[in-house]
């Protein structure tokens, strides 16, 4: 029986991220690479992702302002963004990226713009949820070390 309420809360939060479709099993692969030598590895990778992908989001925003739309360029940018998002297991973000690329393929400007707005929402929502998750994980981390049997 899990006695630590914070640990229970963390587990519940983690489970909800998968159950609600925000994350897929790639996130578990990242967790596999985390160990005592790299205790904050997952958070560091996610931070890297948000820092790295911010540039792509900005470029996509600018590209979507141009008229006429360059669907080939948009597709290329989103291709990169999708790859990056899939590497951290960002399931909903990845789904919107795929949809966006479909709209690019058919030259559907309205579809691209609508999907991009939804993508940005999912991207921001995931960021908030992961920030909460990592904040709680960091609080638990030092407690676990203190309580570990010597």
């Amino acid at each position, binding site marked *: 029986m*899990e006695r630590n309420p914070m*640990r229970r809360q963390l587990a519940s939060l983690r489970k909800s991220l*998968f*159950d609600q479709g925000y994350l897929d099993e790639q996130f578990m*692969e990242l967790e596999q*690479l985390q160990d005592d030598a790299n205790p904050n590895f997952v958070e560091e990778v996610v931070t890297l992702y948000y820092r790295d992908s911010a540039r792509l989001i900005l470029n996509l925003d600018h590209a979507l302002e141009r008229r006429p739309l360059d669907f080939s360029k948009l597709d290329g940018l989103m*291709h*990169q963004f999708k*790859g*990056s998002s899939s590497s951290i297991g960002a399931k909903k973000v990845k789904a919107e990226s795929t949809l966006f690329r479909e709209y690019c393929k058919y030259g559907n400007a309205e579809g691209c713009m609508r999907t991009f707005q939804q993508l940005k929402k999912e991207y921001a929502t995931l960021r908030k949820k992961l920030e909460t998750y990592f904040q709680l994980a960091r609080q638990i981390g030092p407690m676990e070390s203190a309580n570990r049997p010597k």
Partner: protein
Amino acid sequence: MAPTLPSGDQASDQDNWDNGRLAHKRQLLTEIVLRNRLTALVVGGDTTCRVLEQLLLRSYGVQTQGVDNGRDAIALIASGVKFNLIIIDMILSVLNGLEATRQIRDMGVHCKMLGVTACSGESERQAFLAAGVDVFIEKPLDPEHLVPILRELDGQ
């Protein structure tokens, strides 16, 4: 093997399934011990993907270098550095993955090349294979695809 989720929670069927799959993947992750010193080059324009691919390779003991564009990959190989494995992204700056792959093969490099891309459409797959990669996979690179390749390179 310790479960990933705390034992205090009532394990649902989904949790058991997740734990089972995770255990299987962990087995894949830990069951390879390389007998030989392998080296790999990761050519990836996206920092997050490149960092993760390098870390995954290093977790298996593969000595890994990374570059973020095709031109630097060509230059590194032209300088005489040898690799057992090259993992190359389709989308690269300066020189794209397809052209970089062709040039690497034209240089007489015969090592295993693994092409990675965010989307695994048939046309992309065919193009990458035609350019010279041996294996084509959709991102993200995972142990299920990587471990068999490492076993093959290690002669296991």
